[in-house]
């Protein structure tokens, strides 16, 4: 019996030497240490032996079992080690092979920019509201101090639904400012909202002009809101979107529904303010039109301009996206060429 055990031990040790991988090792384990192995069989048959022999054989068998178990452990460690250190072993992979292509979806750059813009204003407490693309003349013009025959209408080349004039004429909104009126008609101060949306112009397209683009309107009305608050709000906005290094300029401009009126520009990133094609050689790029809500507009929606004041602004999303990404042709946005869209 002891002789038999010795043979098993020798055979197992010899065979283990030849084991080169995990699979062979598992087979070896089953053969020599498994439930059906001869060693287990030997231990199981101990009961049949005389007491004296049983002790000797049992002790020997357990000794061999422990020895084989420790050899198994050692071999396992050795195999794992060699797997880690020899890349050219049959188990290795060429990690430079390309991965499996996963379909990738992206948001349109306009959506991305719009999200960023809305996020900045949301953090300043502005809620997002929306309104119709097709508007009454009243909301788009009349209520914003641009009656029929007002020369400022020249600055809004309009696409009309109804050719006939009058406040009941329908048009494609030329800006998101109608939302100022729609919102103030139903809400009382304090008001703090932004209204993103598509706007339309009767305009031939070129590298800097589109017939459709995306605007974000902003409006804040309360007691004691000042032009300085507008400056703070829009400077913060420009800083968040364009970084600390860009300068921001606040100059007087004219929009009939605000007074005083403001144009906000940032120093051109392409030329660092020295003047180039991007900024029309002025060193500045317009990013927003803004101002204090005109008292006539407030009065029209029954908000007392003696008690309340407010500011409004409008930013063009395409313009900001172009500045942020260095895009030089606005027509790229709505041409939806995947070679363009997949860059963002």
């Amino acid at each position, binding site marked *: 019996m002891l002789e038999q055990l010795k043979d098993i031990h020798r055979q197992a040790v010899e065979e283990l030497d030849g084991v080169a991988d995990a699979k062979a090792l598992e087979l070896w384990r089953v053969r020599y240490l498994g439930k059906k192995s001869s060693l287990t069989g030997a231990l199981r048959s101990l009961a049949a032996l005389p007491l004296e022999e049983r002790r000797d054989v049992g002790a020997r068998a357990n000794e061999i079992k422990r020895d084989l178990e420790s050899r198994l452990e050692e071999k396992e460690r050795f195999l794992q080690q060699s797997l880690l250190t020899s890349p050219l072993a049959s188990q290795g992979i060429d990690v430079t*092979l*390309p991965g*499996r*292509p996963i*379909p990738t*979806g*992206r*948001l*349109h750059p*306009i959506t991305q920019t719009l999200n960023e813009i809305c996020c900045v204003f949301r953090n300043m*407490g502005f809620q*997002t*509201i*929306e309104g119709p*693309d*097709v508007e009454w003349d009243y909301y788009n013009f009349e209520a914003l101090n641009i009656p*029929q025959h007002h*020369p*400022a209408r*020249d600055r809004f080349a309009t*696409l*009309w*639904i109804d*050719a006939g004039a009058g406040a*009941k004429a329908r048009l494609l909104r030329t800006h998101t400012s109608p939302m100022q009126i729609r919102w103030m008609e139903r809400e009382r101060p*304090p008001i703090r909202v932004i209204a993103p949306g598509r706007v*339309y112009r*009767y*305009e*031939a397209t070129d590298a800097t002009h589109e*017939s*459709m683009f995306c605007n974000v309107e902003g409006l*804040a009305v*309360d007691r004691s*809101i*000042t*032009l*300085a*608050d507008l*400056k*703070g*709000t829009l400077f*913060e906005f420009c800083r968040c979107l364009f970084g600390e290094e860009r300068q921001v300029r*606040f*100059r*007087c*401009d*004219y929009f009939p529904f605000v*007074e*005083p009126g*403001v144009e906000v520009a940032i120093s051109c990133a392409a030329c660092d303010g020295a003047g180039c094609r991007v900024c029309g050689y*002025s060193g500045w790029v317009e990013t927003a039109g803004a101002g*204090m809500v005109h*008292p006539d507009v407030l009065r029209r929606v029954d908000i007392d*301009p003696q008690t309340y*004041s407010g500011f409004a602004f409008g930013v063009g999303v395409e313009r900001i996206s172009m500045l942020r990404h260095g895009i030089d042709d606005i027509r790229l*946005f709505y041409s*939806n060429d*995947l070679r363009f*869209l997949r860059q963002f």
Partner: protein
Amino acid sequence: MKVSLKWLNDYVDIRLGAEQIAEKLTMAGLEVTGIQTLGGTWERIEVGEVVAVNPHPNADRLRLATVELGAGQVTVVCGAPNIAPGQRVPFAGIGARLIDGRTGEAVSLKAAKIRGVVSEGMVCSEKELGISDNHEEILVLPPEAPVGAALSDYLGDVVLDLDVTPNRPDCLSVIGIAREIAALTGESLRLPEIHYEESAESIDSFASVEIAEPELCLRYCASLLTGIKVGSSPGWLQQRLSSCGMRPINNVVDVTNYVMLEYGQPLHAFDFHELRGGQMVVRRARQGETITTLDEVQRTLNTDILVIADKERAVAIAGIMGGSGSEVTAATDTILIESASFDQAAVRGGSNQLRVQTEASVRFDKGLNSDLPLPPLRRATQLLLELAGGKGARGIIDVYPGKSEPQFLSLTAREVERISGLQVSAAETIGTLRALGFECKESDSDSQIFVSVPYWRSDIKCSADLVEEVVRTMGYEKIPITRLSAQLPRQRAKLSPAQRRSDLRDSLRDMLTGFGFQEVLTYSLVSLEKLERLSPRRKLEAAPLSVANPMSREQEALRTSLRAGLLATVAHNRRSGTAGMRLFEIGKVFSSRGKDLPDEREMVCALLTGARSEMSWHGEGEVLDFFDAKGTVENMMNRFGSKAIFEAADDETFSAGRGASIVIEDERVGVVGEVHPSVAQAFELSGSVCLVEIDVEKLVTKITGAKQYRPILRFPGATRDMALVLDDHVSYRSVEDIIRSTLLVTQVILFDVYRGEQVPEGKKSFAVRIVYQSPSHTLTDEEVDRNQQQMLDRLRQELGATLRAST
């Protein structure tokens, strides 16, 4: 508006550089969009006088010109045909920077020997000076040009190009801009002094004016000059007009233009002898009345258009353009000068109807005050007497039915601060307003400032306008930067439908991009033809809302569906070689509601076509098909926690039998299907194209509140696989419905659909894995078998299913 700094200097001392002036004007609301410097590089170029021209000894085409420079004479070789003794000319000495006439490049002039004669300098053409492209002739200066003076002193100038906003017609004039500069730089304004002698004969004995439409013509002023001589204007006048971009014509027209640029008031000169009878009337045109205007275009008028007429005919379109019949010509000796105030809307309407814009109409259509016409009329009369001779008739015709009331406003320094956040004193407020021409008086009892608005500022109507005047003149850069400190508006506990829609839109975007879809944004305006392509019959069910004045056929109507835009996008990208595509758009579609605003509904549309995955060494994917589209929808609905049912449905865009409605809680919220080959073909597409369309407005009503937690089943489940044989027409959903309604079934997975040798003709086999699980205990085989048997019985009885195999 172009304006020369030299000209501005007549009215205000300009002590700052052009760049700084431009910066100040821009900041204050008058944007300077360009600065052109004339003569900035003219060094060693002087005014000379040609004293002799002699033939060149060795060349027929060249001549030798002797030029007097004050400090001495120089003889140079000259090839220009127009050189002649007595001319004042620009003379460039050695070392001068010039533009090479042939190459257009800047060069430094060197002494040269031309055909054996040494030339120490050059008489210059306009091109060589960088003024124009004319290189054929030398530039001949006006005879008063001072010999020996640096050309840059005599001819050099800086011209500012201003973008004047529509509220500031007063700044469509040199004086207006000078007034701004004066206020912005703390200088004072000098206005032209006007006085001239009048003859004994009264203007009334020559002419009369009647205003038939006092609503449309608020004022009509006229002066009359006799015995004038029409000729060309002096050089200084021509130069000033040219610097502002106007072409000199003759002394009479040039003076009216000059004074218009100076004061901003359009003037018109009539040849008085062509005004039959001299009895002028301002009236509406008769329907169909015609007039040939100065540009030699015959125009047909209507009763909306205001004209100036003599006894017989219209002689000018009021505020827009004069008629050629009474044009000032070389033969003219008596002129009537008009300076009038026409209604802004009337001029604007007329100009729009006739599609003609002139220097006059763009000024009138911004609204000029009726107090303006008189000073410019007197200024023009004075200049004409100086430059064209003749006599001025005594007096002026001034018919003034629409006298404007002066505006009085009040303001406090506190109000300036309340609106602008800029702290100012009453004294600063008053000082600033006065510099701009406002008259101010401080109240004795309180801090009110009473302000009288000058007539040229018809844009100032309320105290907010005055606040802007104060702040913009002091400088927007002085406004402090503060954060909004007012309280935040109350947030609503319940989100509005618009907010919920916007949230849903965000999740849809997140999901679809996560599923590998690229977002696109297409135009809201499309061509009707493109919308028609969505149906194989090429017909639209309802007429879309159309634009009355579309830019092009491509953008003539508001889209009623996002499908056309997406299909066209696929076609566009196919052409550039992209094969497999998953695209989506979320946007509005529009449907007409009579005379009301249209219904605007937000939709999401997704499109799948081509290979499922990009070509790679892992093997190419199969072609995207209906079940990719459906899987996308199922995934979305899963994420929203709502259960959608798909029902076979017809949709014109889809192939028959290959489309389905997406139904949630018995309402159809969208469709999914395979695009009809004829529709695909209309968009130049081939192969399988699948499309999903969901109505966001409907979907938003199906997603309610926060998802509710269900306890996780902790006891192990039991799995049974089986293959059922069914008639071909039995839908999978009817099978799954029965399986799912079986007690303890928690999961059903269809893992094979088979038709072929193993199943009879007209039948199919579904291989299904079913998981049973109990919330309260570990299931025994007996329990599972019992339920499985009940389920099979129902499947057999209700659907005629037979069991092919099971484990």
